[in-house]
């Protein structure tokens, strides 16, 4: 017996097809901090995704107008707190450019060494939390196991584990330590040297050797995992034109097939640091990518980060002998109350999440007249609306996670 409906329109009216506004965040765990997304959905499909930011705003730029540059270094730590070393470096270089300071050779190699280890630590978090966004817990635990050792090493170097204020104007606050006690975490992982005192640079080399082997495991866990590929490949495709127009930088830009890295193409004061270093800039498309992958999708952005870790390991390996061989001081002195010249500079550096810019306007006083911090994540997250249209609701965390944002840097 077939079902008879007198008026076919009655069936249609039973199904609710209205658009719905869904609020996601600011406490949602997969938005990486206090990002609020306002989604206009039709059933499962998202038609509009409006990011709302500012929940962590503390007007760091206004604070900068009341402090001298060395006093402002700790505030840069709190911008991108996952890569605080790179934030310190960016601000220090901008001020050095303003006052025309030459940094000693030893300080340059120290900075490359520290900044690239910081990049590894930051990308490890990026990888681990991205797995968490996609519903797999184990890569997060492995990533934090490794990051913990980097934090141990940074603690030996400067005494802090998260907000270092280590790289400062003119160089660094201290020289690297000569000899340290082997961190317990690393000793337990490699199963030897427990409690021994070893040279600091040797401990770094031991750690890098151990980390290099782990990268293969991450690829097995995530990159080549079928579930991971089906959640990331072909999703959130960002075209090169859109990426450039929206000011995307860092792994997001390079994942969209734009070959640009400030360590190679930046201003002389920054590229001078990396002179004599041999490294590659990973750019999509990749030969080894699975066939589902489209240039500019989530998978490409993720893979650029993984490849950057390999390059950072190479850079640290090259920095160790250069640092050992270099002479001179680890720091050029800079007075706390030194007057800034009446000029203005803008300098961008390649932080792990993109190009972090500092614009410093001096006016013959100790405090800058204006201090602007241009955030890379701010630009990267502004493209969310463009790449989230027409995807199912469940893929929003996968796309936002692939941008690898830190709200402390966006809201400043």
């Amino acid at each position, binding site marked *: 017996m077939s079902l008879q409906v007198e008026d076919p329109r009655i069936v249609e009216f039973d199904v609710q097809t209205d658009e719905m506004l869904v609020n996601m965040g600011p406490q949602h765990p997969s938005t990486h901090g206090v990002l609020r997304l306002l989604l206009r959905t039709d059933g499962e499909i998202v038609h509009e995704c409006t990011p709302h930011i500012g929940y962590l705003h503390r007007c760091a730029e206004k604070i900068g107008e009341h402090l001298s540059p060395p006093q402002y270094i700790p505030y840069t730590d709190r911008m991108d707190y996952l890569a605080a070393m790179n934030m310190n470096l960016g601000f220090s270089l901008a001020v050095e450019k303003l006052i025309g300071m030459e940094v000693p050779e030893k300080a340059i190699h120290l900075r490359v060494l520290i900044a690239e280890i910081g990049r590894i630590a930051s990308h490890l978090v990026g990888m681990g939390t991205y797995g968490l966004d996609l519903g797999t817990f184990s890569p997060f635990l492995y990533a934090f196991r490794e990051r913990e050792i980097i934090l141990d090493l940074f603690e030996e170097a400067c005494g802090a584990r998260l907000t270092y204020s280590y790289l400062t104007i003119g160089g660094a606050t201290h020289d690297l330590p000569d000899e340290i006690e082997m961190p317990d975490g690393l000793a337990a992982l490699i199963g030897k040297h427990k409690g021994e005192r070893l040279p600091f640079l040797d401990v770094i080399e031991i750690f890098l050797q151990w980390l290099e082997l782990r990268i293969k495991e991450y690829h097995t866990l995530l990159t080549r995992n079928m579930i991971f590929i089906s959640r990331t490949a072909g999703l959130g495709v960002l075209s090169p034109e*859109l990426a450039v127009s*929206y000011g995307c930088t860092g792994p997001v830009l390079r994942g969209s097939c734009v070959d640009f890295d400030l360590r190679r193409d930046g201003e002389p004061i920054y590229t001078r640091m990396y002179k004599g270093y041999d490294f590659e800039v990973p750019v999509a498309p990749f030969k080894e990518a699975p066939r589902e992958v489209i240039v500019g999708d989530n998978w490409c952005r993720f893979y650029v980060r993984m490849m950057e870790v390999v390059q950072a390991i190479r850079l640290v390996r090259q920095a160790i002998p250069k640092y050992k061989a270099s002479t001179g001081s680890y720091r050029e002195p800079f007075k706390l109350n030194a007057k800034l010249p009446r000029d203005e500079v803008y300098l961008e550096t390649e932080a792990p999440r993109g190009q972090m810019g500092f614009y410093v306007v001096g006016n013959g006083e100790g405090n800058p007249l204006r201090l602007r911090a*241009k955030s890379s994540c701010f630009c990267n997250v502004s493209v969310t609306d463009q790449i989230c249209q027409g995807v199912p609701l469940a893929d929003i965390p996968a796309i936002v996670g692939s941008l690898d944002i830190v709200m402390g840097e966006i809201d400043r």
Partner: protein
Amino acid sequence: MDIQGIHAILVERFGAAVVGNEPFKAIDPWIQVSANSIVDVCTFLRDDPRLQFNHLNDLCGVDYLEPDPKKAAKFGHEPHIEVVYHLSSLKLRHLLKVKVVVPRWRNDVAGQLPVVPSVSAVWGIANWHEREAYDLVGIDFEGHPNLRRILCPEDWVGHALRKDYDFPLEYHGVRGR
């Protein structure tokens, strides 16, 4: 291309609307553009094959004012607001700084925000940067599709990066200082 070359191209095309701070002695030399022609100049800078400034690195406002009358004599600037555009070309690998100078208040009436045409149609990211400049420095970007506060709450009063900004005593029952 260096700043002299870019300046020559712009002067040839736009004439008196473009002023360079010659002889370009600053660390980052800049080119000053009148507010009315900023959209045309930016479109030209982006599209001209010799320049190709396809990337807007940063857009921000700077408030030049010394609120303390004792220090005002040493300050050395007339009170004004600058909107600073940092451009770069990812293809040709060169940089440019463009400035627009406007009065602190439109018609010198306190509370009336100065007007600068919006470049959000030229670069996508200008949309958010202009919202931030409106929020914190208080510049009205004419023609912006969605000029709302971005970092501060919608009902916030004042623009925090103005030099004469008064910090609020309280906000919705939360003590300010």
